[in-house]
């Protein structure tokens, strides 16, 4: 065994000993893959890249997950007797869930990827359920409500199969689609089903509690919103970077209920992670929430001490900011992101959706007094 191969094996073992969701984890596996490949051990390189699909997704580096996936898929296509493509299919869903968030990827490319998935899934005898769910995700990021409605309906009508997500994740996706389609009441009902029946998965109900908060606020159900905010935030915090975008909804809640102290605490706890969040739509949700909290804190010339990361236009170190000014700066930034989506999407749906969020600043609700928190 060559030194490089031994080193690659050691790195994979070391990576497996690390807590997941870290950049180091990703770096070790990438190095391992490179060492193994340069030493001619394709199987070992495949093992490392296969692990990278998970690691990159978990660490919030979907571009690296996407690359690792593409590499593995190419190997399967070229050496079908050596590498089994079917084992990649489950992860294909993660890849296509994040792909529409790269505005570098065009609508045509997305359609191409979805068709490729449909073809590969059909070859193993799977139905169109999962693919349609992903088409709905893509339509969501493409700001195409008609396509979303079509794909959502087709997905719901399709029977579940081996490639379907778990019930909890599926129901949570429904909540997400319903919100985007403006059906707050139906979304709240679906979210209640998740909560009532104790459904859970890695991210559910943490993300469900969060994403439905604006709907609850719009419907004036501040009591449920409060209880879900309190329950959901600790769960979300434990999941870290991958779902930090959903802290945006918690921030929106804090703004609408005037609980800026809590909002600023959440900001401090999540701002740095959110800056590293590579999913553009998640950054957008997060910044929209941050805007709302700071805008509220800025009424009456409030000042806040925050570490604003460089990629959000700050200095990266702890500084006093005029809340209102910072809010406007973040709003500019988030409008910029929305505009890039709009350009790719060739419509203005994402900007319009952002406006719906910004409109929450006109809303002010008093949370119930008797709080157990």
């Amino acid at each position, binding site marked *: 065994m060559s030194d490089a191969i031994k080193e690659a094996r050691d790195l994979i073992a070391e990576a497996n000993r690390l*807590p997941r969701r870290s950049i180091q984890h990703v770096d070790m596996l990438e190095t391992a893959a490179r060492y193994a490949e340069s030493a001619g051990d394709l199987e070992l390189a495949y093992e490392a890249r296969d692990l990278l699909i998970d690691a990159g997704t978990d660490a919030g580096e979907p571009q690296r997950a996407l690359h690792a996936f*593409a590499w593995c898929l190419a190997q399967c296509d070229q050496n079908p007797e050596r590498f089994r493509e079917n084992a990649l299919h489950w992860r294909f869903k993660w890849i296509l869930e994040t792909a529409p968030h790269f505005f570098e990827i065009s609508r045509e490319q997305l359609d191409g990827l979805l068709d490729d998935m449909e073809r590969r899934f059909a070859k193993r005898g799977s139905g169109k359920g999962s693919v349609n769910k992903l088409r709905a995700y893509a339509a969501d990021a493409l700001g195409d409500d008609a396509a979303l409605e079509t794909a959502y309906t087709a997905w719901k009508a399709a029977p579940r199969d081996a490639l379907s997500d778990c019930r909890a994740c599926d129901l949570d996706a429904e909540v997400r689609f319903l919100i985007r389609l403006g059906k707050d009441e139906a979304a709240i009902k679906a979210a209640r089903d998740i909560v009532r029946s104790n459904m859970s998965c890695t991210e559910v109900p943490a993300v469900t509690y969060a994403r439905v908060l604006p709907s609850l606020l719009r419907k004036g159900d501040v009591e449920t919103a409060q209880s879900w905010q309190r329950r959901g935030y600790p769960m979300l915090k434990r999941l870290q970077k991958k779902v930090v975008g959903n802290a945006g909804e918690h921030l929106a809640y804090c703004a609408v209920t005037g609980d800026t102290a809590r909002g600023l605490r959440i900001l401090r706890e999540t701002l740095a992670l959110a800056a590293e969040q590579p999913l553009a739509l998640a950054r957008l949700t997060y910044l929209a929430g941050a805007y709302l909290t700071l805008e509220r804190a800025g009424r009456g010339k409030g000042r806040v001490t925050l570490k604003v990361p460089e990629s959000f236009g700050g200095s990266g170190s702890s500084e006093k900011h005029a809340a209102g000014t910072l809010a406007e700066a973040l709003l500019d930034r988030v409008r910029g992101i929305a505009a890039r989506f709009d350009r790719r999407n060739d419509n203005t749906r994402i900007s319009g959706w952002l406006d719906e969020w910004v409109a929450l600043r006109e809303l002010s609700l008093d949370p119930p007094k008797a709080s157990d928190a």
Partner: protein
Amino acid sequence: MEQLFQVNLRGIIELLSNHLYSGPQVFVRELLQNAVDAITVRRETSRGAGNDGEPSVRVSVRHGDGPPQIVFEDDGIGLTESEVHRFLATLGESSKRRIDERGRPLETDLIGQFGIGLLACFLVSDEIVVRTRSLRSSDQPCIEWRGRQDGTYAVSSVVDTSLVGGTRVTLSARDDRHEWFEPSRVEELLEHFGSLLRCPVWMIVGEQRRRIDVAPPWRREHGTRSELHDEVLDYGRRVFEVEFMDWIPLRSASGKVDGVAYVLPAAPNLGEPRRHRVYLKGMLVSDRSTEVVPSWAFFVQCVLDSERLRPTASREALYEDELLESTREELGSNIRAWLMHLAKNDSRRLIDLIAVHHRSIKALAADDDDVLSLFADYLPFETTQGTMAFSEIRAARSSIEFARTIDAFRQMAPVATAQGKLLINAGFAFDQEVLTRACELFSLELSELDPTTLSEDLDDLSEHDHERTLEFLRLARRTLERFGCEVTLKEFRPEELPAFHATNRDGEFRRQLQRTREKSDGLWSSVLGSIAGPEHEHDKPIVCLNYKNPLVRRLSTIDDDEAVPHALELLYVHTLLLGHQPLRAHEQQLMPKAILGFIEWGLGERSDKGPLLQ
């Protein structure tokens, strides 16, 4: 007419056993729980005070002519006939659920609350016989309830003077479940679930009685501290079968928790969560709970009992709520306080601990300034001068350079060492966070060194040499341009190294994307191209040639437009191989081409001078 659904009980039981519970063993826990709860209610209502002795739970196994039987007997409050109808016959109905006027569950002293416990007995028995006499008032009759797994049951009044008050449950072994009725198995399960109960539980085998509930060492009075220490460690050895290094007492007011965090004797696998043993009101909920302590506490394995945390419906895990969150934080501060105490008072024990658990400490120090300031100096890092404690590093340098990845460290180490640099490998978990914060704390300058920056930092050539090599550098750039890299000529040690290939993290990723594009079909290739985006100047790979290297120096003096490019191409491939870079297609073609070129060139030279072979 409205009709009720008919529920197939057998189906429900299968469902429970396959999906709700982890296995048939839970019937012991459910029975134990009912018994203990009944005693709790009796204590609360101070009924039946006239009966002799302290109320207890007694468990025995009968092996006779028929199938073996298990008998659970308690001196609890018992049930009246109407309670029997209501609670023993309706799935989901519980005598123990207490709710407030808004329908939210109230905190209670009872363990059970879901009304499905007794069903677990059908996992091992086709028939459950319950005899019970309520103590709510005197002169209550003894009621017998016989439930069968087909969903039918019968209730009758019986004469049983042996049951003064309380409940006796008898199970007869199902044909395929005899193994669960072995006395040793039953006793093992009772201990497993109930050893921390605060209510007497007896296992009776023939004439012998053995007490199941035993106060754990941290709840008992001890003569000396070392006695306590030894007993707690001994307890850990028995429960986890591990020889622990040390232990930390745990207390949480919000979750009403007491227990112990054991310090693992070896560095754990950080990717696998620890499995803690969690009891609720003395009853084991889980021996693989991962949520009770903060995620940075990799180095401990806990056993703890809570009076207040809530179980999920399976009663095999904790319900994630704010109470659990605040309990977790309190337990975290217990562990942290212990570490702080050690740092201040017992540096020998601390050094032993850090030798094994520095990763965990780094995880904690990464976002806790107090811990960091106490531990920073002790924390070890891999450097170009071997493993050094942070105190040694800061004694040696006031500005510190680190490599972000293990690979970058390996690549740069020889060059950095030869330049007299002290480079730290921050490629392991938490190293970078800890270094950043530790340097802030001690006002040290910290900067990342990547191969690109390193190559820029190296010495430039003297003006004279610079002039002399201009043409050579121009030729080198022209030759290697098509590989998308920049070429620089520097002077550095080690002299043996002719050149190295330098990229930063993003440049490295771009290179990988390009390679994979070559292997992918049109669609995927175009997508990879899209996510690569436009190249930034800083991400461009650099081939850094070493003018101190004799080969490079000679090459720069040769005036040959054929030989020098071939040599440079080979040198380029050599730097890639040295850096464990898998080659791209056109780089792969270089090797044979350049080698053939050299052969031709060599032969050409020779042919002028006569035949090659004499």
